[in-house]
């Protein structure tokens, strides 16, 4: 029986060898894990979606858990992919009886291999020669099952890395063709999904698809009132029209029945479908003036406001809010149409269905994106007419909320809130006044008294040039506009002078000049002498 010491000694002797072997392996695992994590993160934010469960629900493979893959699993899948492709190859070559069944069987096996995990063995499949086979399987007249399985394989291949998506180019015209009204619904939907992934890859592929005529058949798939096909088509369309070229957006709104379908879905559809349609309106309102005009004419903004007021789904709220924002940020004609004069202004300010109420709700949300984009929209409202500014100013809920956010929220939210507050304090240059800006003293005095100045001074200290400029500009209004020469005292009290002095060493010349100009003008030699 060995003593403890001996044991300890023995194991101590053994350990170095063990740990060095373990060390290399664990380091490799860690590196692999980091790479997988990075890839995972990228795949999660990519605009492409894997299809892992069939729309019919049956024949669903139990997907492996989503834990990070280890080397061994990966190579097993690669081998399976290669094997499945080989099987498909021979099935396609086979001319005898039951050939068709064999092809479908082989396709199904390949599809399963490509749907099992988050990172399908796409490269292995392509290297084994999957693409020409899959294109072959999309031939006209093929049985639905074959088309479905082939399209499913292509969907998941397209969900991978850019070069993998690009591999689908030979298959595109066929996929588009199978969107036709004679195709069975699941087949059309699966093809739409694959095309959506291709469109999500980038502008180049989008243009290819558009030139091949994808828009019309895909748009038609959106016309029915419900079904998963409608939702998939809407999603694919949103990827197709996202630009930056506005042509696709403009062509989409011209499709017969589309405008009606969009408004119908925004009004009545379930939240999942409404979400995809809302993304379509995001791009329409951002890119196409024609679409914007048509949407406003159909009172889409009312629908947006209503949904925004009643929904609680973050997924839906984001595109609704952004669509509204795009409309408000548009030309003044559009904006005046949204603010129906009379109704909005004389009505109760805190009505939850009007724009201020809706934006207040979003500002109160816990989600940073909603707060930021709501503040952006509000800042554009505040950049409007004096009546619009008063709408905001008079709202009991909004002002305290803005002040609170200015001092406590995340940076990007604070910046937008700063725009809002500043816009409330000054009226835009009008042609009559020979381009002069006039301070709205009531608003400025009130907001400063409520303590907004420290928030702006904080922005002056930020590393972000735009934010620093905002802070300095607001400070200038305070210094110039506060009555009884109170401005400089207030600024000093909040350490504004020190904040401005930082700019002596700042690399941005404009900011340096602005800061120095203010210090020289308001805190020069005479400061403090007239006390």
């Amino acid at each position: 029986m060995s003593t403890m010491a001996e044991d300890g000694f023995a194991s101590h002797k053994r350990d170095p060898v063990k740990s060095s072997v373990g060390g290399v392996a664990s380091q490799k695992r860690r590196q692999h894990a980091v790479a997988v994590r990075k890839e995972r993160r990228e795949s999660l934010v990519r605009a492409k979606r894997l299809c892992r469960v069939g729309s019919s629900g049956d024949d669903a493979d139990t997907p492996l858990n989503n834990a990070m893959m280890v080397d061994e699993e990966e190579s097993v899948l690669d081998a399976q992919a290669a094997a499945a492709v080989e099987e498909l190859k021979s099935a396609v070559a086979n001319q005898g009886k039951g050939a068709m069944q064999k092809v479908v069987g082989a396709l199904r096996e390949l599809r399963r291999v490509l749907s099992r995990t988050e990172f399908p063995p796409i490269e292995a499949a392509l290297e084994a020669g999957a693409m020409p086979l899959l294109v072959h399987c999309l031939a006209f007249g093929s049985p639905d099952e074959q088309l479905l399985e082939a399209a499913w394989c292509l969907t998941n291949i397209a969900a991978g890395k850019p070069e993998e998506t690009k591999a689908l180019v030979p298959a595109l015209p066929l996929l588009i063709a199978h969107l036709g009204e004679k195709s069975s619904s699941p087949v059309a939907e699966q093809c739409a999904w694959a095309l959506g992934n291709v469109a999500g890859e980038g502008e180049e592929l989008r243009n290819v698809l558009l030139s091949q005529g994808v828009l019309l058949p895909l748009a038609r798939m959106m016309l029915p009132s419900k079904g998963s096909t409608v939702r998939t088509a809407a999603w694919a369309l949103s990827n197709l029209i996202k630009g930056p070229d506005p042509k696709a957006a403009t062509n989409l709104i011209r499709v017969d029945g589309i405008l009606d379908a969009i408004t119908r879905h925004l009004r009545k559809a379930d939240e999942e479908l409404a979400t995809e349609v809302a993304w379509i309106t995001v791009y329409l309102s951002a890119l196409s003036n024609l679409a914007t005009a048509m949407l406003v004419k159909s009172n889409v903004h009312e629908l947006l406001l209503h949904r925004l007021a009643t929904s609680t789904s973050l997924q839906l709220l984001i595109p609704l809010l952004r669509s509204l924002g795009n409309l408000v940020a548009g030309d003044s004609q559009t904006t005046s149409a949204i603010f129906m004069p009379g109704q909005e202004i004389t009505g109760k300010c805190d009505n939850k269905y009007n724009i201020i109420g809706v934006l207040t709700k979003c500002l109160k949300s816990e989600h940073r994106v909603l707060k930021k984009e709501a503040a952006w929209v509000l800042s554009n409202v505040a950049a409007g007419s004096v009546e619009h500014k008063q709408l905001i100013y008079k709202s009991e809920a909004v002002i305290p909320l803005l002040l609170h956010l200015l001092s406590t929220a995340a940076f990007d939210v604070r910046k937008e809130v700063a725009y809002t507050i500043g816009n409330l304090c000054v009226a835009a240059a009008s042609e009559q006044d020979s381009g002069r800006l006039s301070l709205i003293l009531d608003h400025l005095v009130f907001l400063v008294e409520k303590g907004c100045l420290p928030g702006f001074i904080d922005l002056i200290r930020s590393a972000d040039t735009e934010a620093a400029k905002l802070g300095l500009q607001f400070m200038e209004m305070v210094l110039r506009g506060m009555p009884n020469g109170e401005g400089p005292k207030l600024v000093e009290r909040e350490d504004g002078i020190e904040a401005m002095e930082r700019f002596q060493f700042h690399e941005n010349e404009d900011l340096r000049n602005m800061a120095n100009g203010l210090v020289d003008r308001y805190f020069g030699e005479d400061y403090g002498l007239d006390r």
Partner: protein
Amino acid sequence: MAMMVLDVDPKADSGFPCWNPVRRRFAPESPFFESGNIERELLAKQIALDLGEEEKHQLWRLLDDDCKDLFCPIVGCRARLTSLENFENHYNSQHAAACSVCYKVYPTSRLLSIHISEAHDSFFQAKVARGYPMYECLVEGCGLKFKSYKSRQRHLVDKHNFPTSYDFFKNKAAHHPSKKAREKKIHRKQAATTHKHEEDEEEEGTTSQKMDVEGEASVDSLTSALSNLTTGSTPSSVSFGRRNPRGLTFVPRSVHQRNNKKPEDSTPPP
């Protein structure tokens, strides 16, 4: 991007670009919308992949850390910032060297030490009075020294293209010292009989600055440390471990808001 039109308001004759409220529009692919776009994809896949809340937060943190292209804006720094929220930390640790006497803050230790010599050192002033060139050129590596503040200023403008309006060491602390400096001053006035020390700034035409030098226990250690000062050294001894008064910004904002009312300031007499 926001477009702030240059103000043509005759009142703002200095050319200051006043706040002009304009609507801001962004293209769909603008970085402005990036976080919302990412949220869209994460949410869509959340259901399919059972992403837990914790995992989503982790992902957000990873994405936030990808703060590319954000650099410190202080001239010559070039440090990459990990986030805007961290800028304050970076600034205070790297760029804020605070004078322990007057609490004025400088972006480099070198400038701080020059300031201390010129503003708080009676030996410095004695040498100046005897005609020695004591005023160093502010540009590191130049090495030239001048007999007066003004001649150094001229040198900066002529040889180093500094703007004429630039006055690095215009001692604004004299006219409106920081809150902390004022509070300290009040305290000192009550604690000991003060002895006014005149700072030589006549050439500038500014009113002279009065600084309490004696009655300050640390002055002796300060002056002995000063005689050992050389350009470029890190005078960590000078700051005496006192924190930058702006350290207050580290306080969580909600707390900061509460202790905001400062006592009535008392600007020093001219």
